[in-house]
């Protein structure tokens, strides 16, 4: 079995995995980081979004071996020194979640979005959430939270 090695949330991580192991399974099962969720497993829902070399990627649609040598950030890697990331903070303040299942993917997508497009408006946020599905909230508070976070991070 191939040995795969990458950096996850700033720390080196490696394991013997089958070539067919998905990145999301490597993260959840080999590293025990269960913040990244598997929702649909058909790359539609976005609950599994993590950052690979700084870009939002669906970790259920990429093999762990494809991420060999990459720098991965999961939702567990956002908070620093016990302080929530501004996007996490905004989701909390604006009640941007209900059951919380889609939240890790929403937050990782939002962090990537704010990096790419610092001056966000509501329409852009809604378009950019195309690949993230929430079945509880109807998105209103998620959009509010992302807009508030983008303001706070300016």
């Amino acid at each position: 079995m191939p040995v795969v090695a990458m950096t996850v949330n700033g720390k080196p991580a490696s394991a013997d995995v089958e070539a067919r192991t998905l990145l999301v399974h490597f993260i959840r099962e080999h590293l025990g980081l269960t913040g990244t969720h598997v929702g649909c497993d058909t790359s539609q829902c976005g609950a599994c979004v993590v950052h690979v070399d700084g870009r939002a990627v669906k970790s259920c649609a990429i093999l762990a071996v494809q991420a060999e040598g990459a720098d991965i950030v999961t939702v567990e890697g956002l908070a620093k020194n016990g302080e929530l990331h501004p996007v996490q903070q905004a989701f909390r303040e604006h009640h941007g979640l209900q059951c919380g299942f889609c939240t890790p993917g929403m937050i990782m997508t939002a962090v990537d979005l704010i990096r790419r497009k610092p001056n966000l408006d509501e329409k852009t946020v809604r378009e950019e959430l195309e690949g993230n599905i929430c079945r509880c909230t109807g998105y209103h508070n998620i959009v509010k939270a992302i807009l508030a976070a983008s303001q706070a991070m300016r």
Partner: protein
Amino acid sequence: MYQFNYARPKSLAEAEALLAKADDPKLLAGGQTLIPTLKQRLAMPSDLIDIGGLKELDFIRAEGNAVMIGAATKHATVAQSPDVKKHNPALAALAEGIGDPAVRHMGTIGGSIANNDPASDYPAACLALDAKIHTTKRLIEADEFFKGMFETALEDGEIVKEITFPHPEKAAYMKFPNPASRYAMVGVFVSKGPWGIRVAVTGAGQDGVFRVKEMEDALAKSWSPDAVASIKIPAKGLNADLHGTAEYRAHLITVMAKRAVAAAG
């Protein structure tokens, strides 16, 4: 997923050698179609040869009257490229509309055209913009490249290296996406350039992307949305599924063509 061997060659030459050696290999680029396909056990390759990270296939250059795009260039890179935005804004807009942001961070132009999904976007751009597809063996005209549903002119062991898009004078792509999959129910790419006028349709045809001669002739006489408004596309040979009948798609082609001509200006 079935088991497979995985290799990540460091050069195109090494990739070709690995392809020649393997039993039933498949090239992996971004994997945004291939990985889901493998997960559903719809394919069982012996080897995956990962060319997604090859730097020699990841470039965008504007030279002369064309933009050259390396096969492993990601959709997000094409969408944000100053060269593509300047010379071929319709192509940049098409790339920005593929899948969703996370898919665009992985999916590649070479993977998209080599797979030739009958509902994917890039084949319509290639066909409407008279693109040249450079492979490890030869140059293939877009008109000759797309052979049918998931079928192309590519031979075993042949790898797409680069796609050359001559600059259009006018162009636009209009897609009616399936709200769940975001693939095109119908997408129409219209263009005017040194090649004349072209209208390419994706998402609708049972044999994949195709051109609509009647619309091209009408637009040659008069470049306006009205010129195509009364053209009725026969439903024969069009896809029908739970999302829409062949007649519905036929009607959508005219609607999307009208919108595309209007958007192209």
